């Protein structure tokens, strides 16, 4: 029954010629193209996959190195910044110190100058006082002299006495330079 139905259905009948040619053609394709094309292609693909994996790994490593470097840089930068701040602070401090010192010095100098001035003034004052004393003394002496002279002139004895005194003074006055000599 099946045989009668399928008598024209030739694709179902294994044909010797087609069996032979299929075997030959497929085996050739498998062995030749397999060896000359598929094997190298699969190998090339595998190699490339390996390459890509390596490249990715390298990139990943480079990236991590980069990030390491970056943190390092940041750390250095932060340190530098800190150092800078410290330096500035120090400089400020030392500047302040310097200013304060200068101020102190200046104050001291001023004090000293003031002191000096005071001393000078005192000295000058003393000198002036001495001068004034001398002047007053001289004036008093003159006045006294005048007064005395007047009195004395009234009395000849006084004049004599004065004369005597003056002589004494002269002697005394002469005596001093002579003594020096």
């Amino acid at each position: 029954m099946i045989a009668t139905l399928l008598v024209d259905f030739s694709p179902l009948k294994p044909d010797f010629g087609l069996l032979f040619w299929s075997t030959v053609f497929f085996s050739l394709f498998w062995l030749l193209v397999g060896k000359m094309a598929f094997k190298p292609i699969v190998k090339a693909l595998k190699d490339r996959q390996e390459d890509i994996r390596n490249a990715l790994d390298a990139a990943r490593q480079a990236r991590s190195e980069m990030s390491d470097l970056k943190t390092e840089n940041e750390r250095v930068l932060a340190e530098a910044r800190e150092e800078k701040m410290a330096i500035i602070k120090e400089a400020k401090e030392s500047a302040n110190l310097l200013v304060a010192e200068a101020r102190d010095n200046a104050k001291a100098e001023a004090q000293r100058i003031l002191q000096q001035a005071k001393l000078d003034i005192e000295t000058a004052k003393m000198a002036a006082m001495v001068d004034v004393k001398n002047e007053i003394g001289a004036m008093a002496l003159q006045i006294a002299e005048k007064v005395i002279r007047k009195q004395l002139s009234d009395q000849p004895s006084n004049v004599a006495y004065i004369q005597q005194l003056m002589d004494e003074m002269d002697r005394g006055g002469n005596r001093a330079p002579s003594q020096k000599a």
Partner: protein
Amino acid sequence: MKRTIILFFTGLFFCGKIFCQFSSVESNNILLASEPTVTHSAPVAGEHEHSEEPPQNHGASGVGEAGHTGTDSHGEHAPFDPKSTAFHHISDLNVFSIGSWNLPLPCILYAPGYGWSVFSSGKFGIDNAHHGNGHLAIDGYVLNHGRVNRISGEFPRGTVEVEAIFSSSDKQSGAHEKDSVRIAGIHYGLDKPSTADAGLFGGGITSFYDFSLTKNAVSMLLVILLLSWAFLSMARSYRKAPGTAPRGAQLLFEPIILFIQDEVAKPFLGRQWERFMPLLLALFFFILGLNLFGQIPFLGGSNVTGNLSVTMVLAVIAFIVVNTNGNRHYWEHVFWMPGVPAWVKTILTPVEVLGVFIKPLTLMLRLFANITAGHMAILIFISLIFIFGQSGANTGAGLGASLGSGLLTIFMMSIELLVAVIQAFVFTLLTACYIGAAIEDHHHAAEEHHG
């Protein structure tokens, strides 16, 4: 951009395919319509010696004229026979029929006790209008519907004029008489080429063997040459510029190769995946290439992977590879399944042994059935036009059916494209799966556990 190109080519492909089917079915139909009177009067081979020849008004070259002289076909329209049309279109032939042209192919024939005959099928004097019948007999061989047949019994060598060929596929009756040929007024029976089905499917060993490069063999050769060229040039560009980005054919094939590698070879074959890559890729591209080649319009629509001979060879190769690579554990599992009670083994062992053969058998049948069914479905949808149009008698119904079956055919062909890829993939996948089962060695632990 790429999508547009693909759409364009798909559209072109469908239009072409439909046109091709139309034109070839139409020519077939005209021939069928022209034949019945000849066939009617043809006596059964063997009886002709004592029966009076019915008067034939054709001349000496009856086959040639049967197609052209419209006298017979004018009278009545023979019912269109979709079955024989479909069967003819999916059969392997000794001519390469493109549209209504039949290109000659080399014939390599062997008849025991008679020797080899090698010649081009063009020597048969193929009548393009007559769907591959030859009007000459060479060394006792004739071309019957595109296929070489041999005259039964003794027949002298040399070229003889054939008057008429009577083929069972031209008849509407269900009964199958042997095809016959009339030469010089005498009827001779025709033998079909030997087939290896031992009569199971209506074939068997006959008086001759046909080792010709048939349409299927030539299609196979063409596809293999094309694939070889593509892959060899691809391999060369990998060699020339290793490690660079893929270009050209590499872009097309590389994802497919990687798909086979990552989805088929690696999961099923484990550590040994690289060893079997050439086989898996060869299987996949061979099947895919031929599946798709069979769908290209204007190229004969070869039904190569829908021919049992081809799928049988592929399955046998898969069978050999699986079983020659089978390790101890594989054979242990087949003959003496570890870890099951002895009485279960008595059931399991026959099942497993049968399984060894059933696996390649299913590979063979699955591919054959899918591709043949696809070709048949398309041919039958096209045949609907002629059935509804009553072979040209009812133009309106024919036009309506053209529209309907045109749409159905487009739908079917889209599915066929899918099937072409799926079947190639399934064949490869299952081969990998069977090889994987034969070579895997992770049963070690389990076996030790079972003691």
